[in-house]
């Protein structure tokens, strides 16, 4: 059995949560004061996801890069693969903030700065 310990980030209370996992299955969740925290903790050990941000080079813009983010959280273990995909992209100005500049495995990559 493995025990994962972390601080909940769902709200500012910051509960110290312990999740016990056996054979890939969540056995017990301790320490959180609400169901949202529990749900988050379970997701954190079974399928953690993150919004990913980076910058892409842009030709002809006011600044040399445009910042981007994924439109939705990405499974954590896929992040290195996504970063490799982003490393090969180049954009041309004009780019508008909010514009989808690429798509990766169905996930939209959105510009957060204009150029």
């Amino acid at each position: 059995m493995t025990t994962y310990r972390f601080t909940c980030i769902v709200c500012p209370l910051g509960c110290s949560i312990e999740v016990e996992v056996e054979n890939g299955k969540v056995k017990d969740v301790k320490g959180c004061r609400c169901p949202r925290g529990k749900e988050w903790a379970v997701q954190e050990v079974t399928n953690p996801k993150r919004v990913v941000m980076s910058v892409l080079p842009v030709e002809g813009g006011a600044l040399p890069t445009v910042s981007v983010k994924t439109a939705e959280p990405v499974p954590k273990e896929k992040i290195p693969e996504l970063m490799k995909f982003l490393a090969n992209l180049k954009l041309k100005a004009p780019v508008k903030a909010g514009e989808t500049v690429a798509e990766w495995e169905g996930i939209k990559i959105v510009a957060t700065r204009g150029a």
Partner: protein
Amino acid sequence: MEPFPQIPMLSYDVVVIGGGPAGMAAAVRAKELGLNVLLLDENDYLGGILPQCIHPGFGLHYYKEELTGPEFASRLARKLVELGVEYKTAARVLEIKNYSDLEKVVIFTSPSGVYQVWAKAIIYAAGARERHAFEIGITGDRVAGIYTAGEAQMLMDIYGVLPGKEIVIVGSGDVGLIMARRFALEGAKVKAVIELMPYPGGLARNVMILRDFDIPLYLSHKVVEVRGKGRVERVKVVKVDENLNEIPGSEFWIEADTLIISAGLVPSVKKLKKIGVEIDPATGGPVVNDRLETSVPGIFVAGNSLLINDLVDYVAEQGELAAEGAKEFIEKGGIESKKWIKVEKGENVRLLAPHYLSGEGDVYLYLRVSKPMEDVELRVPEIGKKMRLPVVKPAEMLRIKLKAEEIKNTEKLTVEVVKA
């Protein structure tokens, strides 16, 4: 009176110095209130540090949705442009002069030359500066590869340049942690984050980054020396005891080509000091009243120049408040109060602003605790006000609202954070 006849002259009700979120919010509000306003920023773009903070986590209170730094900045900038606020970028303020209450001069340089602006009020929103390696006692070789977190962030997230491959970060505040993630995402190896205190300095959601990328965090440790020929090659780390004294024999070296200093921000107030604005040693920013007016009448301050904020939402709120103060100052020729209520720091309160309240309106107090505590009450004993809080941390600024009718009959207020 015109002491600089050779310099072209402009004239406005209010000049806002700094085009970050504090300055932009101030300029927008001033314009909405009917003031004739000019905003100046030395950068080529508006937004202050926000365009380089490309991570999400901005605007949950102010816009009720989670934005990245550039997104937050562009919303404010759009509003500014829609309202027709006059602004100049690449405009660096060199000097402020205070001739009398309604006669102030701001001198700035720009690509089209040097100008003097006469104004009745000034809103100072020039942000903060980062503490450098020498300020935290790091010795050794003068080598390339030492950056502040903000410098590294600008290199990476504005110019698209990775500053190094093997990184040691000093400081586990939000800025250091967020930079750790950016380095790791972009393929650099973050070898360690070194934190002087026995607890991490940042918000829990940011401390999680270290686990995401398996980055070691050394609590109660400090970097004391950097060595290298031309470029950083290794840094010396030593453990400290509970009084932050170095423990002899505990030192070790980490090989790295880059050292990032993320050891806190200091309000940037040099130009204010020069004209005699009183500074609070605890916040590092000016002593202010509830309209965010400094000890020099008609000079207002907002954002990180007032005190270091961790949430941009409060920064924008302060900008608006300063603009409202400027409006009142210009209309009435001064901020009126029959008596100023002094606000004092009680138990476990490290810093606090504003320092004086007029009692004539509702007010927000911003404060930070000195040490982390659980299950506490934030109290203002003179008026019997209490607020229960499950946890407080130095990293998280607290904000409490006091209503005009609660405070109008007091002479002094004390704010304390004590066990509930």
